[in-house]
Protein backbone atom coordinates (compact mmCIF):
# COMPACT_ATOMS: atom_id res chain seq x y z
CA UNK A 1 0.00 0.00 0.00
CA UNK A 2 1.20 3.53 -0.85
CA UNK A 3 4.22 2.16 -2.77
CA UNK A 4 3.57 4.48 -5.69
CA UNK A 5 3.22 7.52 -3.42
CA UNK A 6 6.32 6.60 -1.40
CA UNK A 7 8.35 6.23 -4.59
CA UNK A 8 7.13 9.62 -5.78
CA UNK A 9 8.02 11.16 -2.42
CA UNK A 10 11.50 9.62 -2.40
CA UNK A 11 12.11 10.62 -6.03
CA UNK A 12 11.31 14.23 -5.14
CA UNK A 13 12.62 14.33 -1.57
CA UNK A 14 15.67 16.48 -2.31
CA UNK A 15 13.48 19.12 -3.87
CA UNK A 16 11.00 18.97 -0.97
CA UNK A 17 13.84 19.32 1.54
CA UNK A 18 14.86 22.50 -0.25
CA UNK A 19 11.37 23.98 -0.66
CA UNK A 20 9.28 22.50 2.19
CA UNK A 21 11.67 21.61 5.03
CA UNK A 22 9.86 20.33 8.17
CA UNK A 23 6.47 20.75 6.50
CA UNK A 24 3.92 18.00 5.89
CA UNK A 25 3.25 17.02 2.28
CA UNK A 26 0.34 15.08 0.82
CA UNK A 27 0.73 12.89 -2.27
CA UNK A 28 -1.93 10.89 -4.07
CA UNK A 29 -0.83 8.44 -6.78
CA UNK A 30 1.98 10.38 -8.41
CA UNK A 31 0.41 13.77 -7.82
CA UNK A 32 1.58 16.34 -5.29
CA UNK A 33 -1.51 17.62 -3.43
CA UNK A 34 0.16 20.28 -1.27
CA UNK A 35 2.38 21.23 1.65
CA UNK A 36 1.10 22.17 5.10
CA UNK A 37 2.38 23.52 8.39
CA UNK A 38 0.72 20.95 10.66
CA UNK A 39 -0.11 17.27 10.35
CA UNK A 40 -3.77 18.04 11.04
CA UNK A 41 -3.98 20.58 8.21
CA UNK A 42 -2.30 18.09 5.90
CA UNK A 43 -4.70 15.31 6.82
CA UNK A 44 -7.74 17.54 6.30
CA UNK A 45 -6.41 18.56 2.88
CA UNK A 46 -5.74 14.92 2.00
CA UNK A 47 -9.25 13.84 2.94
CA UNK A 48 -10.72 16.79 1.04
CA UNK A 49 -8.69 15.99 -2.09
CA UNK A 50 -8.83 12.18 -2.01
CA UNK A 51 -11.86 11.22 0.10
CA UNK A 52 -11.55 7.61 1.23
CA UNK A 53 -8.90 6.81 -1.38
CA UNK A 54 -5.49 6.14 0.23
CA UNK A 55 -2.99 9.00 0.20
CA UNK A 56 0.48 9.60 1.59
CA UNK A 57 1.09 12.17 4.33
CA UNK A 58 4.74 12.65 5.21
CA UNK A 59 6.82 15.21 7.06
CA UNK A 60 9.77 16.48 5.04
CA UNK A 61 12.79 15.67 7.21
CA UNK A 62 16.35 14.73 6.22
CA UNK A 63 16.11 11.54 8.28
CA UNK A 64 12.35 11.19 8.62
CA UNK A 65 12.08 7.52 7.71
CA UNK A 66 13.62 6.04 10.83
CA UNK A 67 12.75 6.06 14.50
CA UNK A 68 13.42 4.02 17.60
CA UNK A 69 11.25 2.79 20.45
CA UNK A 70 13.75 0.74 22.44
CA UNK A 71 11.45 -0.50 25.20
CA UNK A 72 9.03 -1.87 22.58
CA UNK A 73 11.65 -3.18 20.18
CA UNK A 74 13.49 -5.01 22.94
CA UNK A 75 10.31 -6.42 24.50
CA UNK A 76 10.84 -4.63 27.80
CA UNK A 77 7.33 -3.27 28.39
CA UNK A 78 6.19 -6.10 30.66
CA UNK A 79 7.96 -6.88 33.87
Amino acid at each position, binding site marked *: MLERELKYFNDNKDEYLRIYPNMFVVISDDKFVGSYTTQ*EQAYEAG*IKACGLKPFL*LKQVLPDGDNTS*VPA*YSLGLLTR
Partner: protein
Amino acid sequence: MAIIHGLQPLQPGLVNPAVMLQGMIAHGPRMPIEVSLPDPLIEILSREEKPIPRSVSGSILIDTGAGVTCISDRVMQSLGIQPISTIRMGSAAGSNPHNVYPSKLTFPLANGLTLFWLVVGVDLSGQTLDGQPELIGLIGRDFLVNTLLVYDGTLGMFTLALK
Protein backbone atom coordinates in the same frame (compact mmCIF):
# COMPACT_ATOMS: atom_id res chain seq x y z
CA MET B 1 -3.18 24.46 29.08
CA ALA B 2 -4.48 21.01 30.07
CA ILE B 3 -2.93 19.29 33.06
CA ILE B 4 -3.00 15.56 33.80
CA HIS B 5 -2.16 14.33 37.29
CA GLY B 6 -1.41 10.63 37.16
CA LEU B 7 -0.86 8.03 39.81
CA GLN B 8 -0.81 4.25 39.97
CA PRO B 9 -2.87 2.17 40.16
CA LEU B 10 -5.32 3.91 37.86
CA GLN B 11 -8.41 3.21 39.98
CA PRO B 12 -9.88 6.55 41.09
CA GLY B 13 -10.28 7.18 44.78
CA LEU B 14 -7.47 4.88 45.85
CA VAL B 15 -4.77 7.16 47.28
CA ASN B 16 -2.50 4.99 49.36
CA PRO B 17 1.12 6.24 49.26
CA ALA B 18 2.66 2.78 49.54
CA VAL B 19 0.39 1.40 46.81
CA MET B 20 1.09 4.42 44.61
CA LEU B 21 4.84 3.97 44.93
CA GLN B 22 4.71 0.26 44.17
CA GLY B 23 2.23 0.86 41.36
CA MET B 24 4.51 3.41 39.70
CA ILE B 25 7.51 1.09 39.99
CA ALA B 26 5.56 -1.83 38.53
CA HIS B 27 3.54 -0.10 35.81
CA GLY B 28 5.18 3.27 35.09
CA PRO B 29 3.50 6.56 34.22
CA ARG B 30 0.31 5.37 32.54
CA MET B 31 -2.97 7.17 31.95
CA PRO B 32 -6.31 6.35 30.37
CA ILE B 33 -6.64 7.04 26.65
CA GLU B 34 -9.37 6.76 24.06
CA VAL B 35 -8.46 6.26 20.40
CA SER B 36 -10.96 7.08 17.68
CA LEU B 37 -11.33 8.16 14.07
CA PRO B 38 -10.15 11.67 13.18
CA ASP B 39 -13.01 14.14 12.69
CA PRO B 40 -12.46 14.64 8.93
CA LEU B 41 -12.74 10.88 8.43
CA ILE B 42 -15.92 10.71 10.53
CA GLU B 43 -17.41 13.50 8.43
CA ILE B 44 -16.74 11.75 5.14
CA LEU B 45 -18.00 8.36 6.44
CA SER B 46 -21.17 10.06 7.70
CA ARG B 47 -21.68 11.77 4.36
CA GLU B 48 -21.34 8.45 2.56
CA GLU B 49 -23.61 6.76 5.15
CA LYS B 50 -20.92 4.24 6.11
CA PRO B 51 -20.61 2.76 9.61
CA ILE B 52 -18.38 4.59 12.08
CA PRO B 53 -16.43 2.24 14.37
CA ARG B 54 -16.60 2.96 18.09
CA SER B 55 -13.60 4.40 19.88
CA VAL B 56 -11.26 2.07 21.79
CA SER B 57 -10.25 2.72 25.40
CA GLY B 58 -7.22 1.51 27.32
CA SER B 59 -4.12 2.89 28.94
CA ILE B 60 -1.08 4.58 27.42
CA LEU B 61 2.42 4.64 28.86
CA ILE B 62 4.61 7.74 28.79
CA ASP B 63 7.86 6.48 27.26
CA THR B 64 10.60 9.12 27.07
CA GLY B 65 12.75 6.58 25.22
CA ALA B 66 10.29 6.39 22.31
CA GLY B 67 10.91 8.72 19.38
CA VAL B 68 7.28 8.51 18.23
CA THR B 69 3.83 7.89 19.69
CA CYS B 70 2.61 4.36 19.06
CA ILE B 71 -0.81 2.70 19.19
CA SER B 72 -1.55 -1.00 18.96
CA ASP B 73 -2.04 -2.22 15.38
CA ARG B 74 -5.00 -4.23 16.68
CA VAL B 75 -6.72 -1.01 17.80
CA MET B 76 -6.05 0.81 14.53
CA GLN B 77 -7.31 -2.15 12.50
CA SER B 78 -10.46 -2.42 14.63
CA LEU B 79 -11.11 1.25 13.85
CA GLY B 80 -10.67 0.53 10.13
CA ILE B 81 -8.27 3.44 9.65
CA GLN B 82 -6.08 3.28 6.55
CA PRO B 83 -2.36 3.96 7.04
CA ILE B 84 -1.09 7.20 5.52
CA SER B 85 2.61 6.43 5.61
CA THR B 86 5.27 4.07 6.88
CA ILE B 87 8.31 4.51 9.08
CA ARG B 88 11.21 2.19 9.84
CA MET B 89 11.73 1.24 13.46
CA GLY B 90 15.09 -0.02 14.58
CA SER B 91 15.59 -3.10 16.73
CA ALA B 92 18.45 -5.36 17.70
CA ALA B 93 17.69 -7.45 14.61
CA GLY B 94 17.64 -4.55 12.17
CA SER B 95 14.82 -2.21 11.16
CA ASN B 96 11.30 -2.98 9.99
CA PRO B 97 8.62 -0.86 8.36
CA HIS B 98 5.61 0.07 10.50
CA ASN B 99 2.40 1.72 9.38
CA VAL B 100 1.65 5.32 10.37
CA TYR B 101 -2.03 6.12 11.02
CA PRO B 102 -4.04 9.30 11.58
CA SER B 103 -5.93 9.20 14.87
CA LYS B 104 -7.87 11.21 17.40
CA LEU B 105 -6.56 10.80 20.95
CA THR B 106 -8.80 11.69 23.89
CA PHE B 107 -7.41 12.15 27.40
CA PRO B 108 -10.15 11.59 30.02
CA LEU B 109 -7.90 12.92 32.82
CA ALA B 110 -7.51 16.22 30.94
CA ASN B 111 -11.24 16.93 30.85
CA GLY B 112 -11.61 15.00 27.62
CA LEU B 113 -8.97 16.94 25.70
CA THR B 114 -8.81 15.61 22.14
CA LEU B 115 -5.89 15.89 19.73
CA PHE B 116 -5.32 14.82 16.16
CA TRP B 117 -2.11 12.80 16.07
CA LEU B 118 -0.12 10.62 13.70
CA VAL B 119 0.66 7.33 15.45
CA VAL B 120 2.82 4.36 14.56
CA GLY B 121 1.19 0.93 14.64
CA VAL B 122 2.92 -1.61 16.89
CA ASP B 123 2.14 -5.08 18.19
CA LEU B 124 1.41 -4.70 21.90
CA SER B 125 -0.22 -8.10 22.35
CA GLY B 126 1.01 -9.74 25.51
CA GLN B 127 1.86 -6.40 27.14
CA THR B 128 -1.13 -6.41 29.50
CA LEU B 129 -0.51 -6.80 33.21
CA ASP B 130 -3.01 -8.48 35.53
CA GLY B 131 -5.50 -6.05 37.02
CA GLN B 132 -4.45 -3.17 34.79
CA PRO B 133 -6.34 -1.62 31.89
CA GLU B 134 -5.01 -2.91 28.58
CA LEU B 135 -1.90 -1.11 27.38
CA ILE B 136 -2.80 0.16 23.92
CA GLY B 137 -0.08 2.70 23.30
CA LEU B 138 3.06 4.62 24.11
CA ILE B 139 3.41 8.39 24.31
CA GLY B 140 6.67 9.32 22.56
CA ARG B 141 8.87 12.35 22.32
CA ASP B 142 7.04 13.69 19.25
CA PHE B 143 4.13 14.26 21.64
CA LEU B 144 6.16 15.18 24.73
CA VAL B 145 7.84 18.03 22.86
CA ASN B 146 4.61 19.98 23.48
CA THR B 147 4.39 19.16 27.18
CA LEU B 148 5.94 19.68 30.58
CA LEU B 149 6.39 16.32 32.32
CA VAL B 150 7.12 16.07 36.04
CA TYR B 151 7.82 12.57 37.32
CA ASP B 152 7.78 12.41 41.11
CA GLY B 153 9.17 9.02 42.01
CA THR B 154 9.13 9.82 45.72
CA LEU B 155 5.33 10.06 45.71
CA GLY B 156 4.59 7.67 42.85
CA MET B 157 2.94 10.44 40.80
CA PHE B 158 3.44 12.32 37.59
CA THR B 159 2.07 15.51 36.09
CA LEU B 160 1.78 16.12 32.36
CA ALA B 161 0.95 19.65 31.26
CA LEU B 162 -0.07 20.00 27.62
CA LYS B 163 0.27 23.31 25.77
